[in-house]
């Protein structure tokens, strides 16, 4: 399968690494041979008609941009041009999330679908702003749009809800969906440090982005709730319909006050028939969604099956890549390339 990767940051690089490391296994087990034919970052593109080696990509990226490769580098070449002109089966869109207009991901995804290329993305911006539109566009062009990694990172939240829970009714969904804030709240509770200190720690550890505001103000969680509602529950929810408050007002003393009762504060996103809310909530430590560190947890409250909870690594390049891999294998099953 010929693959174009747009965006070569944390997730993109982890993905190429996994594809390289698991090459044999993926081929033997799933018949998946991933030929990366182009990678694009802000500096330009690297393109090869046959396939790009992992070592070539890493070496080029080490000097800033993949376009710096002396043989295959195309400095300044834009993603849209690559998507339109290079033959490929799948475009994997991994540029930063932008919830104002979804760009550059929105145009990249639309262009890929219009050019009849399958799309896998973890970029929440376009999905939040235009999920039903993009699905319609994919269907119209006879290709697939997959985004397992957009919610819960490695946790198979979306597919689990859409496929494994069929026949039962989801009454409500509740979860911790943002690894960065969960790490911060966990560290505040266990080390009794301030939010600022915990944030710095998270940044040092590579869990938080340079601009962590989407995480801290709850918007990242809200995006994930919107995608879940629209995809799993067939709603038409916009970000503005969601009541969002982040963790910036949570203080160490808030946490200390309740810890003796076996409780702590977590940033919880919840969906029920009436409303969708993101806000810090007091949870009992026994609550199955009350997980620590960068873990994510999602509980589905089912009409017949009762509560079902998924817990696991929600963010990070490697776990998110595992979700992309699932999407790739699924697309491989439908296409013959």
């Amino acid at each position, binding site marked *: 399968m010929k693959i174009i990767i747009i965006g070569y940051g944390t997730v993109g690089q982890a993905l190429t690494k996994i594809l390289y490391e698991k090459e044999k296994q993926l081929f033997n087990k799933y018949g998946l041979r991933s030929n990366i034919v182009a990678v694009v970052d802000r500096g330009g593109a690297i393109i090869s008609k046959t396939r790009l080696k992992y070592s070539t990509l890493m070496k080029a990226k080490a000097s800033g941009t993949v376009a710096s490769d002396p043989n295959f580098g195309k400095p300044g070449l834009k993603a849209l041009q690559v998507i339109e002109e290079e033959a490929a089966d799948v475009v994997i869109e991994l540029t930063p999330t932008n919830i104002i207009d979804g760009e550059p991901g929105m145009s990249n995804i639309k262009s890929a679908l*219009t050019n009849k290329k399958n799309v896998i993305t973890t970029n929440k911006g376009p999905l939040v702003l235009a999920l039903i*539109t993009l699905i319609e566009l994919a269907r119209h062009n006879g290709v697939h749009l997959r985004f397992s990694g957009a919610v819960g990172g490695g946790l198979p939240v979306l597919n689990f809800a859409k496929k494994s829970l069929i026949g039962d009714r989801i009454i409500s969904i509740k979860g911790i969906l943002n690894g960065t804030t969960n790490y911060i709240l966990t560290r505040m509770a266990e080390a009794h440090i301030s939010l600022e200190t915990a944030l710095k720690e998270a940044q040092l550890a590579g869990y938080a982005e340079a601009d962590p505001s989407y995480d801290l103000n709850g918007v990242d969680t809200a995006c994930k709730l919107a995608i879940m509602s629209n995809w799993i529950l067939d709603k038409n929810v916009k970000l503005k319909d969601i009541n969002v408050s982040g963790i910036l007002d949570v203080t160490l003393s808030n946490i200390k006050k309740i810890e003796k009762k076996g409780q702590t504060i977590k940033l919880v996103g919840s969906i029920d028939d009436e409303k969708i809310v993101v806000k810090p909530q007091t949870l009992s430590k026994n609550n199955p969604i009350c997980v620590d560190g960068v873990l994510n947890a999602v509980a589905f409250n089912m009409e017949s099956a009762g509560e079902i909870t998924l817990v696991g690594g929600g963010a990070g390049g490697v776990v998110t890549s595992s979700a992309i891999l699932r999407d790739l294998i699924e697309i491989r099953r439908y296409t013959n390339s």
Partner: protein
Amino acid sequence: MKIVMKFGGTSLTDGEGIKRVVEITKTSLLKEIKIVIIVSAMASITDSLFEVISRAELGDLEYIKDFIGKLATIHHNAVKVTVNDKEILEKAMSEINALVKELERILFSVSYLREATPRSRDYILSFGEKLSTAIVCAAFQNQKFEAYWFTGGEAGIITDDNFGDAKPLMNITTQQVKEKINPLVEEAQIPIITGYIARTQDNVTTTLGRGGSDYSATIIARALDFDEVWLWKDTDGIMTADPKIEPMATTIPIISYSEAIEMAYFGAKVIHPKALEPVFEQQIKVRIKNIFNPNGLDTIIEKHPWTNTDKIVKSIVMIRDVAMVTVSGTEMIGMPGIAAKVFGILGDNKINILMISQSSSEANISFIVPRGDLNNIVNVVESALLGSVVKNIYSESDICVVAVVGVGMKGIPGVAAKVFKAVADEGINVRMIAQGSSELNISFVVGEENDVRTVRALHKEFQMDKFNRSVSLI
């Protein structure tokens, strides 16, 4: 209040017609109503474009030149009558000239190739709306309104590539129309959009097929979440019957979406059924109004009409130009699947069947088809079926179909008896009754010579000249 107003070709016969469009819109604008305008091609222009395409395919260059000259004149005249501001006039004239020139170029290239592809056909057809819309826009600007015109595609209507009868991709369309048109609406500017035309995701021009401009209007209303769609035509809304047949016919105040669809199916030139699709779910009201009588009676198409009127029967529709084909044979009795076989054959040959009836003895099946296709249909059916179980195929073309439509008939006993008694009392023989169709209509076949009498008898029986207008209508 937000309204999409669509002005059909009959509203746009000439400059005076276009002035009327501006006046009518102004009245609503003064009431702080927000408006998006959809414009059809000027009267008969679309037909003449179809004609010139076929002439171009024959390589008739003279015809093309002559046509282009006339087309330019019609539109020049219209704009001169409507616009007196020098600058706006000049700009509109040059827009028209550029469009006409481009059209000529395309027609010439068709005539060299001797073939118009579906794609180039749609492109050529789009010029009718582009020309009229440019003029309507200039007419608004001339009256100091901030108006802008767009093709349907520019406005954001994206369709599949089924040229000639394209279908919108409604989600993409909604998103794009919102992005493009909403800001203008918010700023109280007037977006003026070509009806009938749209484009594919690759920016290739498409047309929406018959009833396309109404369709554009409802698509835009749905995309922008507007309150109502006003379709300006040349009659006082939808009538209880064709006034040329029944002089007592009157405007139906309110009908449901499904009644309108039913009537359209039976040939009433109300609105194309597909045009109701976009507004059905959102329950956006559609009004049919008369451009020549803007304060007169109109018809509202909406969801729950029966709460507003006491009428069981809303409308009597008659279809002429039909024929009845009857297939018979005693061996057909008790033979399973024979009906399916007959209709399968007709379906395979893309023959449109309006009504079906099978006698209770099962010894014969009748169906109603367009009269123009009759010979072809008889041939098809004969070659496929005659000789085996089917012993006889005969056709009658001196007939017409009468359909009585009204959602109020649902569950009310005795309506059918009333219908057939009224017809029988006139000494009119019913030749066939449709079976198993929806509960919204009763349809039957009478001899063509009895067409007018049948319609009038029913109109009288159901007192359709007296509609309850207790509901206040704007």
